[in-house]
């Protein structure tokens, strides 16, 4: 494959030689970062995160009580925000088809239940998902770039992305190179995101930070800014493949980052919390955090998503509970 992607920041010998006029990132979002030095200045200038304060903040937000009308509206909103996900080695075409059917009509017995935002599958199952979903509003998201570890060469990652896009993926979930990030090679991570963004074409790019491997909230804040500066449309917490996935403090820090980024640039970046969110109760807590941190503008599937599979059934159960007043049997809804 021809080397069509310029990776200006990798040539670190002379930052000034990389050409500050090169515009990276999304078309809507001209990056102001022209060199590794500028990136270091931008990320180094971020203030540290008060971890105790973040934990206390999410704990207090988690105790907010929601009135019944609000709760009903939020349950429906949460359903529309779900990226219904199956990322297993044993995924079969049949499983993907039934997932797509569920994405379109989450509860076949109740037509008032809205469709989910997207289905999320591995690249080889994208075309099947797209065909099954037809021209419905449900998007197909695909993980790419050697998900979940991201340990492959750049060419392999880009080929992975292009194949998924060519097969019909509307959204690409890429993983960042955590090894490079943690060892301080931020420029490398930045360039990868820029290159993947370019390979995505018109597809939306979600950048998975894998916060469970970033150790500190300071790193989460830095990685969020790095991804946004490099052109991410969404920043996403986790792959769901490491023990620690989305946690409320991490999502709080990411929401603060997108809020501050919007204030700086006027560009609204989305946040996707993925992994470990299984109950409607947790989902509603996250929505409260979204509203109180980034603001109500983010309460839309265009700017906030849940990456989940079992969450959908719990939302459906709570929705049915709100409707009938009686607790619902879990096996009333189809499994995955």
């Amino acid at each position: 494959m021809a080397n069509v992607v310029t990776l200006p920041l990798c040539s670190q010998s002379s930052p000034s030689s990389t050409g500050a006029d090169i515009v990276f990132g999304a078309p809507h979002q001209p990056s102001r970062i022209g060199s590794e030095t500028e990136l270091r200045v931008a990320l180094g200038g971020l203030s540290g995160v008060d971890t105790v304060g973040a934990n206390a903040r999410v704990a207090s937000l988690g105790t907010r009580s929601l009135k019944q009308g609000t709760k009903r509206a939020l349950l429906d909103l949460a359903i529309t925000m779900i990226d219904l996900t199956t990322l297993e080695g044993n995924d079969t075409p049949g499983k993907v088809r039934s997932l797509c059917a569920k994405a379109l009509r989450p509860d076949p017995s109740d037509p008032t239940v809205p469709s989910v935002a997207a289905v999320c599958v591995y690249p080889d199952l994208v075309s099947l998902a797209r065909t099954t979903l037809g021209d419905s509003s449900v998007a197909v998201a695909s993980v790419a770039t050697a998900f979940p570890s991201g340990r492959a060469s750049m060419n392999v990652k880009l080929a992975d992305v292009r194949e998924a896009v060519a097969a019909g993926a509307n959204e690409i979930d890429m993983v960042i190179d955590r090894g490079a990030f943690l060892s301080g090679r931020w420029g490398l991570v930045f360039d990868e995101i820029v290159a993947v963004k370019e390979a995505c074409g018109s597809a939306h790019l979600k950048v998975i930070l894998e916060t469970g491997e970033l150790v500190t909230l300071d790193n989460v804040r830095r990685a969020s800014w790095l991804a946004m500066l490099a052109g991410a449309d969404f920043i996403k917490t986790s792959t769901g493949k490491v023990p620690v996935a989305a946690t409320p403090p991490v999502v709080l820090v990411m929401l603060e980052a997108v809020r501050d980024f919007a204030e700086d640039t006027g560009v609204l970046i989305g946040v996707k919390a993925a992994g470990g969110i299984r109950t409607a109760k947790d989902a509603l807590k996250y929505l409260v955090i979204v509203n109180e941190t980034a603001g109500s503008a983010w309460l839309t599937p265009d700017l906030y998503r849940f990456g989940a599979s079992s969450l959908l059934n719990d939302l459906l159960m709570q929705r049915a509970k709100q409707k009938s007043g009686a607790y619902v049997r879990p096996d009333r809804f189809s499994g995955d």
Partner: protein
Amino acid sequence: MSNERLDVRKTYKLLINGAFPRSESGRSYEVTSSAGAFLGNVSWASRKDVREAVIAARAALSKWSGATAYNRGQVLYRIAEMMESRRDEFAAYVAASESLNDRESQSVVNETIDRIVWYAGWTDKVAQVLGGTNPVAGPFFNFSIPTPTGVIGVLAPQDSSLLGFVSSVLPALAVGNTVVAVSSERRPIPAVLLGEITATADVPAGVLNILSGVASELGPVLATHEDVDGLDLTGAGDLAGTLAADAATSIKRVFRPTALDLDWSASPGTRRLRAFVETSTVWHTVGQ
């Protein structure tokens, strides 16, 4: 220096999934003896405690129903052993709750322990009595076996705080169901003590959940809960008819006691053992 010690007052808590939480609602209520003396503050279970208890009971069902009948019998017998070693405490609370004298309350505890042993013994005999081979006209072996109904909500009797509680809950457990029991509202303490001894009797977490509270508040929640498979209306009082109708919307098996079933001192028979079992019938070809 005074020899007087501070009182170590006890909080009577719920039993949900093998743990002893206070009510999610934070509520408690005062329990007095029938003479009006203060006995303790008891957790006042809420709708959400029922929800948590049902989740625990559902999760515990496969292990408990899949255990061998012999093993279930051992576990239930162990409850009797544990109660035997705390019989004076049980007797004191039964006496206070039900205004009985010492001799009468000791006799209730004796009957209760015997009742537990009775049901422990039944675990591996139910299948022989309720099941069997069926004669069929063909080269088949055909047999029926009783299988547990599932998660059972038990509204325990309001009067008999220990013997009645055990007599309602144990038969459901003996045949392999898991139970969410609502104790007597005014006399909950003996049931709470029973919950405490199950923790040392190898009863797996979630198999028996005990909620102290108001049957007229928790009964409708259990009756309408789709994930509850059976409902024992012994302690439902006037609500029994309404609750039975509620239970019908999710097709629960319902046990409504007759006057005979409410004589706790009488021989229990097998009525309650039959209440929450489903009969599975299997055909099997006969080989040469």
